[in-house]
């Protein structure tokens, strides 16, 4: 039993819905009680989809339990087939139906529908959303994909499949477009994109491609591995987020396809390298950043932070337990601890402890950062409606790198402005609680009275004067208050560490300046 306030991932059947909703001509019959229909709103509200997810719920009730829930399920399948005329059907159970053990697969098979019916076994009490999506996609591929037609193997231009983009993904829509453009520039044909917009017929053609691109490993890797084993299609799982990773992706893809990568690599294709070198960006140097998200996005972001922004990654974590090992390896490279957890409170505690200057995370971390007055940008699901922008905003490829430069730099103070703030910190316009001028009034959030139930006393983020034996003198507090808010937390932390190490009990202005000198910068 695990106590949860907010969850990073939904149950595995929501992952299945993400696959079904991304596809066309597919219908998913889910044996589930009425409340589970909430999942529709994830797609219609958060992603602003203009169609309902292709899902029928049996919505059985307590009174049905004694009677015949199996019949109810079969009726739902028949009705859904009649009404929607899908070319393939997925059937499965949500957590409650899993307990009543009606065997949706067997029941649907007994109806002998003239289309492929794919039973999904998604253990709700063990697994979560991304795993559910991966497993569903794998079942779909395994059931529908056919071997390639070998006749014209050499006569065509090299081709690949793009695997992994789903409904409710973080910028999947735009990533697909960006990567397709890149592949076209390389002269590589995209055979099928799946599950995004794919029909069962498209899935059947997967085998025709020369290789696969596993764009979102959390979702596509299981299927990609199966295709490799079964149809001898190699796959690439380099996630092309960031300039370096995109360059590597281009080289790897070009090698597999037997084409020349140089036409793409030699053109100046992202503004990020120049923007990062231009002197206004000097202020980005060593900004302390904490990164959390699904494994692929978190790892890509951490690498970009270090090598493309010149940030200092002070922590990295993921809720994707399936990829914990990879994240740990990267964390070691970066010399930090990896935080593998799906407990939001643990992430919050880590952020409070580390006092980063920026958090790159999910919508959950956005809330954490907002409460603590730390700059934040969202890099990964779970998402909210604002993560589906109207503008073309890929994360992947060269344009993706441009988007990320803008997105991550935006919450931070602009270089020149930071400089001015340092000079005029006493001026009324640049008072203590001044926010970056481009961010309007709301960026330094004080804990709202409605948010008083912080798990850890919010004052520990900006601790009160007395901390165990450590206390702050009035003049030290005053000096501290003159330090711009976005470095104040760090200054306080450093000073306290400094004082503790030296057995100083009362922190004075002098201690603060001593600590400043000690820690440099």
């Amino acid at each position, binding site marked *: 039993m695990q106590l949860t306030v907010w969850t990073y991932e*939904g149950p595995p059947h929501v992952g299945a819905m993400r696959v079904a909703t991304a596809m066309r001509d597919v219908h998913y019959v889910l044996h589930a009680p009425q409340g589970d229909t909430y999942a529709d709103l994830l797609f219609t509200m958060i992603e602003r989809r203009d169609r309902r997810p292709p899902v029928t719920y049996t919505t059985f009730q307590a009174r049905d339990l004694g009677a015949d829930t199996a019949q109810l399920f079969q009726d739902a399948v028949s009705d859904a087939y009649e*009404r929607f005329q899908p070319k393939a059907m997925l059937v499965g159970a949500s957590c409650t139906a899993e307990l009543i053990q009606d065997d949706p697969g067997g029941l649907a098979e007994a109806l002998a529908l003239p289309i492929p019916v794919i039973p999904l076994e998604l253990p709700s009490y063990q697994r979560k959303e991304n795993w559910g999506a991966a497993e569903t996609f794998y079942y779909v591929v395994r059931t529908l994909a056919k071997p390639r037609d070998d006749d014209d193997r050499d006569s065509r231009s090299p081709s690949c499949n793009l695997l992994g983009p789903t409904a409710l993904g973080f910028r999947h829509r735009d990533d697909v477009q960006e990567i397709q453009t890149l592949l076209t520039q390389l002269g590589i044909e995209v055979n099928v994109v799946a599950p995004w917009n794919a029909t069962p017929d498209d899935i059947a053609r997967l085998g025709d491609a020369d290789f696969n691109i596993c764009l979102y490993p959390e979702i596509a890797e299981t299927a990609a591995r199966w295709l490799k084993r079964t149809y001898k299609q190699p796959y690439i799982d380099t996630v092309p987020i960031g300039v370096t990773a995109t360059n590597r992706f281009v080289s790897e893809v070009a090698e597999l396809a037997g084409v020349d990568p140089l036409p793409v690599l030699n053109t100046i294709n992202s503004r990020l390298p120049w923007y990062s070198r231009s002197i206004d960006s000097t202020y980005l140097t060593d900004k302390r950043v904490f990164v959390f998200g699904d494994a692929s996005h978190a790892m890509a972001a951490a690498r970009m932070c270090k090598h493309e922004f010149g940030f200092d990654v002070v922590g990295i974590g993921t809720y994707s337990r399936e990829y914990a090992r990879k994240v740990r390896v990267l964390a070691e490279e970066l010399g930090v601890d990896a935080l593998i957890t799906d407990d939001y409170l643990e992430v919050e505690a880590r952020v409070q402890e580390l006092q980063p200057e920026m958090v790159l995370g999910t919508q959950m971390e956005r809330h954490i950062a907002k409460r603590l007055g730390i700059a934040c940008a969202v890099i990964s699901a779970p998402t909210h409606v604002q993560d589906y922008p109207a503008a073309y905003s890929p994360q992947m490829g060269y344009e993706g790198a441009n988007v990320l430069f803008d997105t991550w730099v935006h919450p931070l103070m602009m270089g020149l402005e930071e400089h001015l703030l340092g000079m005029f910190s006493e001026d009324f316009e640049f008072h203590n609680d001044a926010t970056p001028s481009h961010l309007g009034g709301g960026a330094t959030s004080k804990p709202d009275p409605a948010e008083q139930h912080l798990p850890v006393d919010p004052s520990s983020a900006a601790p009160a004067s007395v901390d165990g034996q450590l206390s702050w003198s009035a003049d030290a507090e005053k000096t501290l208050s003159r330090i711009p808010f976005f470095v104040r937390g760090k200054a306080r932390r450093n000073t306290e560490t400094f004082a503790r190490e030296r057995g100083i009990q009362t922190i004075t202005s002098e201690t603060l300046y001593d600590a400043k000198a000690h820690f440099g910068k």
Partner: protein
Amino acid sequence: MNSSSLARSTSSAEARPVIRERGQREVFCGLTGIVWLHRKIQDAFFLVVGSRTCAHLIQSAAGVMIFAEPRFATAIIGERDLAGLADLNDELDREVGKLLARRPDIKLLFLVGSCPSEVIKLDLGRAAERLSKHHMPAVRVLNFSGSGIETTFTQGEDACLASLVPEMTESDERRLLVVGALADIVEDQFRGLFAEIGIDAVDFLPPQHAADLATVGPNTRYLLAQPFLGDTAHALEERGAVRIDAPFPIGVQGTTAWFKAAAAEFGIAEAQVDLVTETRRARAAGALERYREELGGKRIFLFPDSQLEVPLARFVANELDMQLAEVGTPYLHKQHLAAELEALPENTRLSEGQDVERQLDRAREDEPDIIVCGLGLANPLEAEGYTTKWSIELLFTPIHGYEQAADCAELFARPLRRKRRLEV
């Protein structure tokens, strides 16, 4: 407007034909009620014992994660818990212990049952008793079901309030009990109006603090503020309380009739209510005037969701001159809705239960001007060219009473106005 049209009902509405459907329901389960109940009872904590789905539902229904650690959480049952119920009880006790240790502000803890907890027959009633013994007097532990196999959307509130009734102290005092969670601002207005009318002994259920739970007894007269409280009403009656038959305080007419019903019960002349409410009625009616021009003649289709549909339909039909295409409700409580049904225009198409696909077919055939429906249906219908109002907002926005009548009308008017304005 004729307020007598909402006089207390005498004849029955039995004769009205009702479409009864049993197909796919597109409605949340009772767990959703936690989203507003935890704001209402300020020292209560709601611990759902359920699955990851349950946690995800509440998170999604709450929309945004506004609170760092809100007064609700889900104890997610894991694979290992399913292996043995005894261990599951121990686990639950342990988790509750940890929670209460961390949150000393909690005075009342609800264990909220879910589909999984019910299917595996985890006895939360027993668990609540056990935990209560252990944590009293600091914390009282109660339980109710918000499961989707037992409750639909607002019925979670019903189950929660019903679980409070046995906790109410017995009293012979003649008091009025207003039942149903109302926005604080509405509660304040109602309290003030009752006092002006001359009823001072008024309590509200749920209370804002656990310790302020009202008393109950044979002299308690209760007035429902929400139409979905069948079980709570039943529990109150078992304690001797008597229901005051009234429509619901939505719209000027509903609100007036509601206060009059209470006044009559307490031996206060109708004229007194008229006198006290005169300025409010006039102000609200004035505010509705504009909306009647905007909404009059427009056809509205209400999908079943909160059980507020019948009172809302009565309000928009009688006070805003809207036309009713269909009024759907998850359950039609004929007795509690008697006065409401009486006041509905004749030939109103009523439906109870749901088969969402068929209902969508009917809606498309009707081509209403506005469709009131859940969040899963709204955008897809908009994309088909319909104008919609998402129904959960009717629970989250104060709509009861005089001062909120125009706000309620605005909820329907705004989507239509927006549609007219947009040129793209």
